[in-house]
């Protein structure tokens, strides 16, 4: 900008005032535009990097939650015939023939097991049904197959619900996994219903995740608030020293802190033996691989995240307000609740939401410290991705976790954006 105006001054010596007006504006605009382009060029490398190495891979993964290629790709003729079938009448010979020949082909290509696994997600037992039928047809190689041939191969085919499951799985996109993540399914009549009580898993897991995160958020606020208050209201020498107690765990590796709690919370670990020596308990408590251990370890991880924004807010609160309230006759407790506490709300909100967001996403700590009843959404996402290899369901559960996180983060952003709460 500086350059632009100097150039302009040089020129204006020889130019009339009126003609000068437009070039100046233009030049300013051009310089501004150059600045903008330069800024964008600086941002572009990281932007493209994050887009390519982070955002797009996650978007592709989310796509798996509705992607349904198994039947369409491996039983192509069957998929076409299934779209013509009404789902209630006896399957036509055209359909059964197409299915038989696709099955033989899939068996030869060794893709029949992929199809069988996919169908088994919907109706259990269908894996064996499909592989058995494929094997039988492969040995007879029929040119044509009727409904009777299928029933001969396995009498379960007489039950239309297996054909309906096949039809449900034959579209290229499916709501199946997303519904599954909410413990819902499309029943044989084509309506969305809840799965039977005994099979409902994931809504429980979701609420368990929210509950654990909620408990530790409230807990870390209760522990963090007095710490932040103490830090904000002592001499800077003392507060620097005490701040160290908050920052050391903050910077210490998550694995180190988790391993510390595994050691401390063991049956004959430091916590139990200390409590027994003090005479507070007689029998060692079960803390590890149980809920109390998870709460304790989570609190230890999250308190620093709550203390930092609270501290930032509290240092900017003038002590004059409290003094004014007390000098006007308010009881200190009332002055605190009515005058001080409301001023810390942005910090409580920011710290609380941050703790909650972090808590719902933790994977390592509950995996190492919790028992089977303490595992949260992250564990089931990893489990379906690694062990059961049900990637559609892993992605659908991931979508639930990601959307929840994004909603919370937008609230967090609004809170911190408006009040200027800083981390650290």
């Amino acid at each position, binding site marked *: 900008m*500086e350059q632009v105006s100097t150039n302009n001054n040089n020129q204006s010596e020889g130019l009339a005032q009126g003609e000068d007006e437009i070039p100046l504006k233009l030049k300013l605009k051009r310089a501004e535009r150059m600045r903008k382009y330069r800024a964008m060029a600086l941002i572009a490398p990281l932007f493209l990097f994050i887009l390519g190495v982070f955002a797009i891979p996650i978007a592709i993964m989310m796509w798996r939650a509705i992607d349904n290629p198994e039947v369409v790709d491996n039983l192509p003729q069957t998929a076409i015939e299934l779209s013509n079938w009404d789902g209630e009448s006896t399957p036509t010979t055209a359909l059964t023939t197409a299915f038989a020949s696709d099955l033989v082909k899939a068996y030869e290509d060794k893709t029949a097991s992929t199809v069988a696994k996919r169908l088994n997600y919907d109706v259990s037992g269908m894996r064996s049904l499909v592989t058995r039928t494929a094997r039988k047809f492969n040995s007879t190689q029929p040119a044509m197959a009727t409904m009777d041939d299928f029933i001969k191969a396995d009498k379960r085919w007489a039950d239309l619900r297996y054909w309906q499951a096949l039809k449900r799985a034959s579209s290229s996109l499916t709501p199946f996994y997303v519904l599954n993540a909410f413990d819902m399914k499309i029943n044989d009549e084509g309506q969305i219903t809840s799965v039977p009580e005994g099979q409902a898993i994931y809504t429980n897991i979701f609420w368990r995740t929210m509950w654990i995160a909620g408990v530790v958020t409230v807990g870390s606020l209760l522990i963090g608030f007095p710490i932040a208050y103490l830090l904000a209201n002592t001499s800077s020498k003392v507060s620097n020293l005490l701040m160290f107690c908050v920052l050391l765990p903050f910077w210490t590796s998550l694995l180190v802190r988790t391993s510390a709690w595994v050691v401390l919370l063991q049956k004959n670990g430091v916590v139990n033996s200390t409590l027994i020596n003090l005479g507070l308990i007689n029998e060692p408590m079960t803390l590890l691989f149980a809920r109390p251990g998870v709460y304790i370890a989570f609190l230890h991880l999250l308190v620093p995240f709550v203390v930092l924004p609270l501290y930032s807010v509290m240092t900017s609160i003038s002590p004059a307000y409290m003094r004014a309230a007390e000098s006007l006759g308010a009881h200190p407790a009332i002055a605190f609740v009515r005058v001080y506490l409301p001023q810390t709300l942005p910090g409580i909100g920011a710290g609380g939401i941050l703790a909650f967001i972090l808590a719902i996403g933790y994977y390592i700590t509950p995996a190492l410290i919790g028992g089977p009843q303490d595992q949260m959404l992250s564990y089931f996402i990893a489990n379906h991705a690694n062990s059961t290899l049900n990637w559609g369901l892993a992605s659908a559960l991931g979508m639930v976790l990601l959307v929840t996180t994004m909603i919370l983060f937008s609230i967090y952003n609004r809170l911190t954006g408006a009040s200027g709460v800083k981390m650290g």
Partner: protein
Amino acid sequence: MKLQPYATFGQKVWFYTFLTIAGGGLLFLVLPILVIMPLSFNGSSFLSYPLDGFSLRWYAEVFQSEVWVRAIKNSLIIGSASAFLATVLGTMAAMGLTQANFRGKGAVNALLVSPMIVPIVISALGLYFFFAEIGLNATYTGLILAHTALGAPFVVITVTATLQGFDNTLMRAASSLGANPVKVFFAVVLPLILPGVVSGALFAFATSFDEVVVVLFSAGPEQRTLPRQMFDGIKENITPAIMAAATLLIAFALALLSVLEYLRRRSEKLNSPS
């Protein structure tokens, strides 16, 4: 915080109760970390007090075992490579973000910090599928790229914060004196924002050095890192050797903390209008 000489009995009780609660909270934060350190010097393999004599055997086990040494090496390689990339890309982006306003800046900013917010399991799974497609699973390149993405937001945030206190006229002065933009950056801007850049780099390094979920999904046996090695140790059989590794990492955290504190003070001094 101090007790006024005219405080009533109730106020005194409340004051000491408060100190106990806050002090208890602080102890809860540091004690677990301090308590496990002596266990790494235990003579026997028990992880409880009292200690059976003093011994450095667990440290010897860590430094003499090929697995642990390789894990430490891998963590250092992946950590420094990804911190370097994250620092270069992140500093450039922070310069761009503070220099001009344009439409969609908020959205761009949100994308740049997203790796910090997305739950790590989701990032790890997305990267695992993606790397499977392009053959980057079980490679150093894959892990370095992944950790660069996870560390870069911290660089963007710290450098942006430092640039907020930066006087832009200095840049104009330098360019009006004929320096090209690259020279302006290295001769004028970088020396002044260096504390922010270095703490961003340390943040990125610590992020990679601490990361285990992406490693669990995407690394092969060749790329085992220190946290991964600890994860397996805790899961299978926790020995004082794990505590020795933990103690080394705590010492590392202390060093990091001191450097950051030094940088913070320096940057405060530089930016204060004296």
